[in-house]
């Protein structure tokens, strides 16, 4: 018998279609069909300047958008051959790990819910809310955050971020204890997860699978350890691996990864260098509009050292924050608002970066940068033709190869196992179909 599941089905989160061939209740073959959420990400990236692709990257893996943002910026930065400030690197690590925790919380909550454990879902969503609070305080949004920029970040961390994050860490630790209490010895949960959706390490490698899915089979490949980027080599963390490559091991790996991520967040927040204010401000803060007026009539003498109070929509772009998180490379970094308003060099610099046909212009060539996404290796391959628009942006979507292997993984299991197995893939439509 052929059984069609999806594309619109409550357990096929996102939109994906599985055509399963059944013999009684056993799946004897399964064809997975994707593409229902294709939004031409790679094509659209070619249409605008480099920084215009950042909002698109938010919508790749929308459960952990910060990792996508940062991965894309790192790829373009490698193409340009520039480096960012120390503080920026630490912030990027903290934000990536924040995102990883929210991603795993969503994955575990949703797959537990699909097996009837609704309490777990509510608990993990409660914990996720604390992380989203912290993310919102930094970026102004919960999901579509557009926080990273080529050469830096939109803005520095706000006051109270550390307390918010440490609170989220505390709350999540207690939620994880509760989740473990509810699930780890739960007969229904363990019976449905154990020995279902099994994949061997050889098969996982042959299919190009990475991330928690690969680690559940016992292969400890993690981009953060194997090709460290940002400041991951300075942080102390373990890479949890499973043994059996089944759904239960993937659940354990994700649980442990959250604990490791929170360890990293704590360390990074502790080690993060405080950004020194590089310019003598003389303690004077003036409204930005007044500064523009002053500059227009030629009162530019002291403006270089003045700090302005910009409109709240421009929060984080004034000198005090700007220099902490932005690269000093003029080819990519928008100048601080004081410079844009106060001197001709800054104004020209700003103009050159934002006007059509100017902008960031990496040299002709191509570069690849892999980062560890929540589902595995997330890589951006950027080709530049020397103009201000990327010639080609290729994203290596981490759940694409897992979905490629899904038909094989499902074969031999029961119909009821499709739901937990698919849940443990953590398929994200935005990233799979782009």
């Amino acid at each position, binding site marked *: 018998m052929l059984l069609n599941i999806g594309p619109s089905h409550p357990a096929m989160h996102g939109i994906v279609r599985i055509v399963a061939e059944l013999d009684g209740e056993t799946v004897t073959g399964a064809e997975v069909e994707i593409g229902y959420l294709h939004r*031409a990400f790679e*094509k659209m990236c070619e249409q605008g300047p480099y920084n215009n692709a950042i909002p698109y990257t938010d919508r790749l893996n929308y459960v952990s958008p910060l990792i996508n943002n940062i991965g894309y910026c790192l790829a373009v930065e490698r193409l340009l051959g520039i480096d960012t400030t120390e503080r920026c690197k630490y912030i990027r690590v903290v934000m990536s790990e924040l995102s990883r925790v929210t991603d795993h919380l969503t994955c575990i909550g949703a797959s537990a819910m699909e097996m009837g454990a609704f309490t777990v879902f509510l608990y993990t969503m409660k914990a996720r809310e604390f992380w989203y609070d912290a993310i919102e305080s930094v970026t102004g949004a919960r999901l579509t955050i557009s926080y990273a920029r080529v050469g830096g970040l939109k803005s520095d961390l706000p006051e109270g971020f550390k307390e918010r994050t440490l609170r989220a860490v505390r709350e999540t630790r207690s939620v994880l204890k509760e989740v473990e209490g509810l699930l780890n010895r739960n007969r229904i949960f363990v019976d449905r997860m154990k020995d279902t959706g099994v994949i061997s390490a050889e098969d996982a490698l042959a299919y*190009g699978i990475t991330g928690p899915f690969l680690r559940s089979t016992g292969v400890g490949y993690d981009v953060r350890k194997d090709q460290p980027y940002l400041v991951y080599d300075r942080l102390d963390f373990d890479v949890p691996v499973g043994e059996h490559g089944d759904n239960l091991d993937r659940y354990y790996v994700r649980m442990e990864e959250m604990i490791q991520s929170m360890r990293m967040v704590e360390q990074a927040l502790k080690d993060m260098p405080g950004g020194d204010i590089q310019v003598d401000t003389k303690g004077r803060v003036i409204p930005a509009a007044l500064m523009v007026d002053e500059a227009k009539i030629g009162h530019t003498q002291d403006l270089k050292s003045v700090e302005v109070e910009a409109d709240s929509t421009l929060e984080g772009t004034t000198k005090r924050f700007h220099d902490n998180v932005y690269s000093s490379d003029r080819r990519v970094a928008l100048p601080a608002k004081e410079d844009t308003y106060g001197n001709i060099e800054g104004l020209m610099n700003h103009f050159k970066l934002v006007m059509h046909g100017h902008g960031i212009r990496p040299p002709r060539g191509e570069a*690849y940068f892999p980062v560890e996404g929540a589902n595995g290796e997330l890589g951006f*391959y950027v080709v530049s*033709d020397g103009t201000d628009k990327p010639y080609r942006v290729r994203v290596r979507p981490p759940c694409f190869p897992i979905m*490629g292997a899904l038909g094989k993984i499902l074969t031999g299991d029961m119909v009821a196992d499709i739901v937990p197995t698919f849940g443990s893939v953590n398929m994200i439509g935005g990233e799979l179909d*782009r």
Partner: protein
Amino acid sequence: MLTDVIKSRFPNIVTQACVDRVDNFIVIKREGIKDIASALRDDPQFDFNLLMDLFGVDYLHWEEKALRFEVIYNLYSLRKKHRLFIKAPVPEEDPSIDSVALVWPAADWYEREAWDMFGVRFKGHPNLKRILMYEEFQGHPLRKDYPYNFRQPLVGPKN
């Protein structure tokens, strides 16, 4: 140097080898992809057991590129921790190359995507059909001569 070793090992297949920034790149003749792929996977010296990615690039109007398309293979070795990009130029008149789906099963879906997006045929692929677009779709959307705002919806309003 990895690229030099590979070049001297396969002088008839590899036409160019270089290290750009941190990554190793080799350019090959498309006829040799199957041989070099299985050798790179099986030889313990290279040990490329992971096909991380496979995709196309359309170099329309690039003077330095003699052939229009390039199929790029992103290989990684877990044990050696090295990465290699293989570029196989493919001409516009006959956009085809041998499939490596039997060497790395991961290539199955990646090749379907490259076919879908660029119209590069993978000879010997077990099931080469569109993956992201629908079967009735005309053309290959990531080609540079496909306008980004051209719509051809399966249902709903036409252009």
